[in-house]
């Protein structure tokens, strides 16, 4: 569907392109270095060297496994909302808030006017793209999720906060595209939190983000209550939805049967919350189920979500199975080419 756009952007991808959602596990020595940096025992430069080395390793893993669209692996990020909050004007970080069980986190607080003060992700994108000929995705956390995952002490409503964030993040998207990123992913895991807000302002926020930027946009949603936002979510002005599917027993396929999907679709075929690696037949079957409701040229293949909670070994196994399954399905569709 969006193949025209990819071609125009100069991206040559096979049918059923394979990619990942964003994060990879951090090795123990990086976790230790981050802890030391927080405790002011090592300097930023020292941490940076380790992050760069780890990023290099993940890029070669992705190339070796044969993924088509790469990511930087987010070695430099802690929480996906806090990373952006720390780098935008207007934010403070709260005290400890409970997330579940015995888990606590510090939540961003919108304490003043949100403003973009300079590139947040360009540096790492450029570094990573410099390591490979394969396209590397630019990645930002979306305005709706930033709003929903932050306290708001400044704006009179959720809508105002979300649209202000969209304006700020639009600047980030512009500089990413200018630096050369042709595929930009906007992570919006929270977008189904209040389904009524999708037509009220979430679509408008995405219009602000993408306006006038010539790139192929992917929107990643996980843990979503899709039944409440589909087909309304097709109004989001993006090219590709990246949805968690294997973890929800492929309920989505049934939804898509009722209302055809009008964009490209990155279909999650391996469960990132399970230690067990799916066997190749299971993954192939998931791809075949997706093809019941999507045309091959609409379909991208990836895991459900970021892989940062898996081990390095599990991550590599899952990606291998995924790439092998995609290759087999490609073959069954088109013989030996392309």
């Amino acid at each position: 569907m969006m193949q025209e756009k990819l071609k125009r952007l100069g991206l040559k991808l096979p049918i059923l392109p394979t990619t990942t959602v964003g994060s990879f596990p951090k090795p123990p020595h990086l976790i230790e270095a981050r802890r030391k940096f927080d405790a002011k025992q090592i300097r930023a430069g020292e941490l940076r060297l380790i992050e760069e080395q780890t990023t290099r390793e993940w890029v070669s893993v992705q190339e070796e496994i044969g993924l088509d669209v790469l990511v930087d692996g987010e070695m430099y990020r802690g929480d996906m909302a806090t990373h952006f909050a720390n780098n935008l004007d207007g934010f403070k970080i709260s005290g400890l808030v409970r997330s579940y069980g015995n888990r606590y986190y510090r939540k961003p607080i919108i304490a003043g006017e949100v403003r973009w003060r300079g590139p947040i992700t360009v540096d790492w994108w450029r570094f990573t793209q410099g390591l490979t000929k394969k396209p590397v995705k630019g990645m930002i956390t979306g305005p709706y999720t930033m709003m929903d995952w932050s306290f708001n002490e400044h704006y009179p409503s959720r809508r105002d906060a979300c649209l202000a964030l969209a304006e700020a993040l639009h600047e980030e998207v512009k500089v990413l595209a200018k630096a050369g990123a042709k595929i930009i992913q906007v992570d919006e895991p929270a977008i189904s939190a209040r389904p009524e807000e999708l037509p009220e302002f979430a679509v408008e926020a995405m219009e602000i983000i993408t306006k006038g930027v010539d790139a192929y946009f992917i929107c990643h949603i996980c843990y979503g209550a899709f039944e409440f936002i589909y087909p309304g979510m097709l109004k989001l002005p993006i090219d590709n939805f990246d949805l968690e599917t294997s973890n929800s027993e492929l309920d989505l396929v049934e939804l898509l049967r009722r209302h055809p999907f009008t964009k490209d679709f990155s279909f999650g075929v391996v469960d990132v919350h399970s230690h067990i690696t799916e066997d190749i037949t299971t993954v192939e079957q998931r791809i075949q189920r997706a093809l019941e409701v999507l045309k091959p040229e609409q379909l991208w293949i990836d895991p459900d979500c970021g892989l940062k909670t898996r081990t390095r070994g599990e991550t590599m196994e899952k990606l291998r199975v995924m790439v092998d399954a995609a290759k087999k399905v490609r073959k069954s569709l088109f013989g030996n080419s392309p």
Partner: protein
Amino acid sequence: MEILTASAGSYPRIGGRPEQQRHRQAHAKLEQGEISKEEFERVQDEVTREGVEEQVKAGLDVVTDGQVRWHDPISHFARRLEGCEINGLLRFFDTNFYFRQPVIKGKLVRREPILKQEFIFAEEVSSKPVKPVVTGPYTLAKLSINRLGGRFQSLVGEFVKIISQEVSDLVSAGAELIQIDEPAILKNSGDFQIFKEAIEKLAAEKGSARLALYTYFGDATSLCKRLLKLPVDVIGLDFTYSPKLANVIANSKCDKELGLGLIDGRNTRLEREQEVLEVLKLVLPNIGSERVYLNPSCGLGDYLPREIAFKKLQNMVAISEKARELI
């Protein structure tokens, strides 16, 4: 008319200071097998006592035990029931908090009273009346996976059985005001008849105690009139979802006591006195009962840092004093 300040549920169990990490550290040690269940219980007792003391210090008229021992409002009940297994994490309504989802596989049987001892302990350590908080049968059923095979209504019936026993145990333990939390009804008004029957059955168990039915995490404007007709003594409403709710109450005859959730329990911004007083000026003249409660829109424990939770309560108490001058 009397204006009382109340807690609406949970209170943060850890804070920012090193000595306020006790619960978190003990919990981790329990999971590692480094301390016994009894030792962990002692920490939970201490933290409960601290939370109660902070609520009293903030100036509240009615406090809770802070729900320090709860994993979440759903599995705290479900994990003590036969006929039920606990599944993975799921987002709790539209919040940033997650609960464990129950899977109901058979008739539900309570192994032992769930809240009774928690209530008795909090009563002992509190200088103010303690209000036990019970998750309601409708919300418990709505957030569970039904593998019973029957209709949703019979699943609600299973939970009515359990929660009725809880209410009656709490009454016999001396609770005078019992809060039933039913956030799920706000977004599922089509189920109101099932919900109504469930609440009626609970109300039959209340004996000499008074029941407060609290709704939150949604816009109550369309359900408000029907909620006010239910056979309970207090209706709790969340005012953070729709600015219209105050007008709806101002325009309807209301003889029930209300729990006015005018303090946003999920945002760190402290309410300005004027914005709360304006709503009170609008709604209080139309309330025919002798008492209202001013409270946060929901429990604070899973949504705010402890320092902010305390300030929110203090601020609420200060506003209530101004409000008393109004009437």
